[in-house]
């Protein structure tokens, strides 16, 4: 029995490193195949990093939701709404108030998601599918499908094209969110309770963990992260628009699951989620450089995501 446990441990160990191997592999592949298309140029790598940033921020939030055995399908629409709200609010109320209001709206949507899922006992995938529709609709109504330019320099510096020394502010946000997420998940009581609730809600409840609160908070975390990601998208393009980030949901879920987070709760990795986001950003970038048409990109990306998630889930079932 003990021997078997040890063996399992040995097999289990590489699982969390699969995503890093995949990152290196895909990078190597594109570096060779796309060497004439400028994949490994400084500007393209920076571009990949900037594209990965909003994905990574959403992925960290999603890691908490999935870790708690919940899922948040509304993140893409929350990001889109946030890009519009922040564009408007920063213009009319100034930098600090605009950012604060936008984050508060994200938190609020997460709280509503969590409250309905927990108190009305509707699975979070259904609740958030509903809010996905509602939030998308609100975003479309907000400015009649028009994009809203952002002219606040402070905002563009902090959330967009700016940099601290040589490091793009988008990358700094990714690092901040990653470090905070990692510490919360592994060093704080709450992070441990998230995983306990995700692994076995009734056992966690029998030990007195307030499972309702933990689940609501996990959904607040994912929606707030999505709101921040929307602000980064808005900063990068210097506009808010009703569809910014709207199509990132599947990409984010793939990034998180490839990164070693269990789709059904109990196990999560923030570092893996960020590595998974870089993998997804490289794939997006490589497919574009290959000259695929948008329609073909969609097909290729969908197939790759299913394949990648299938592989990482097979790994997870082993344990």
């Amino acid at each position: 029995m003990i021997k078997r446990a040890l063996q399992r441990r040995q097999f289990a160990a590489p699982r969390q490193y699969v995503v890093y191997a995949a990152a290196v592999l895909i990078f190597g592949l594109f570096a060779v195949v796309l060497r004439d298309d400028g994949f490994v140029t400084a500007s393209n790598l920076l571009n990949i990093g900037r594209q990965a940033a909003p994905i990574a921020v959403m992925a960290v939030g999603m890691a908490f939701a999935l870790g708690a055995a919940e899922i948040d399908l509304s993140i893409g629409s929350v990001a889109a709404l946030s890009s519009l709200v922040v564009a408007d609010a920063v213009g009319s109320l100034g930098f600090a108030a605009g950012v604060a209001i936008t984050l508060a709206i994200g938190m609020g949507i997460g709280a509503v998601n969590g409250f309905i899922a927990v108190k009305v006992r509707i699975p979070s995938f259904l609740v958030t599918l509903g809010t996905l529709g509602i939030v998308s609709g609100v975003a479309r109504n907000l400015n009649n499908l028009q994009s809203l330019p952002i002219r606040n320099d402070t905002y563009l510096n902090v959330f967009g094209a700016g940099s601290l020394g040589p490091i793009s502010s988008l990358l700094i946000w990714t690092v901040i969110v990653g470090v905070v997420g990692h510490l919360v998940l592994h060093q704080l009581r709450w992070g441990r309770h998230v995983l306990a609730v995700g692994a076995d809600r009734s056992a966690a409840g029998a030990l007195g963990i307030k499972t309702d609160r933990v689940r609501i908070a996990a959904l607040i975390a994912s929606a707030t992260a999505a709101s921040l990601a929307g602000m980064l998208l808005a900063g990068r393009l210097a506009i808010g628009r009703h569809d910014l980030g709207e199509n990132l949901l599947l990409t984010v879920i793939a990034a998180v699951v490839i990164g070693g987070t269990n789709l059904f709760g109990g196990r999560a990795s923030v570092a893996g989620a960020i590595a998974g986001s870089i993998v997804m950003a490289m794939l997006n970038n490589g497919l574009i450089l290959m000259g695929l048409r948008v329609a073909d990109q969609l097909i290729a990306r969908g197939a790759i995501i299913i394949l990648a998630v299938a592989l990482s889930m097979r790994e997870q079932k082993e344990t």
Partner: protein
Amino acid sequence: MNAAAPAAALEAEGLCKSFRAVRALDHVDLTLRYGEVTALLGDNGAGKSTFVKCVAGVYAPDAGVLRVDGVATSITTPDAARALGIETVHQTLAVIDTLDVAENLFLNREHTRGGPIGAWLGVLDKKRMRSETEHILERLGIRIPSLRHSMGALSGGQRQAVAIGRATAWGRQIVMLDEPAAALGVEQAARVLELILNLREGGAAVLLITHNMDRVSEVCDRAVVLRQGRKTAEVAVGDVTKDDLVGYITGAKSQQAHS
């Protein structure tokens, strides 16, 4: 046993709990005394686990009184039960397979570091919890190959040992064990019984749910029998045979409980 009955640790009086039309508990009276092991017997669906969950704060009883050390209390959450010194090993063990042994032992009872701010944030003191886990397991004679193993990688007996260790490690005075030795090997089951006897020696009040009549005669002082949610018998184990107990459980024999 001494002539003077030991002091009551927990008294349940007229405990009722229904699930829709089913009366899972129907005016059940039960007393646990310090330094005594009480068996709670009954067929499947007799209400044993429901009783345990009502006392452990998992279910809220519909009616009845719970007294701990003679003081009437309402136990509305598992936290409240734990704060009153009531520890429970549930039938499902309530261990988290993806967390390791130390993490399970200290789940929702985590030590924090970094002073008041650390406590407020809940900054885990992993080192302290790990070293205390070692001491606890050693004291209880539970052998686990490595504390870093996730619970899911342990054998059934080891998982059970950790669950029982968690309930008994804190010097608590009221311990309820729901089928703690079911599905265990002979040696592991003996180990569990030893833990129970240690608890009794330490003066704890123990409630043991089991289907195994040998175990009842080995470690229990008294036996309470439930049948369809009602208490049908309460006996001193020394006064009856195993056949008597089986008779009470199946309803072939009956005793008007008078308490």
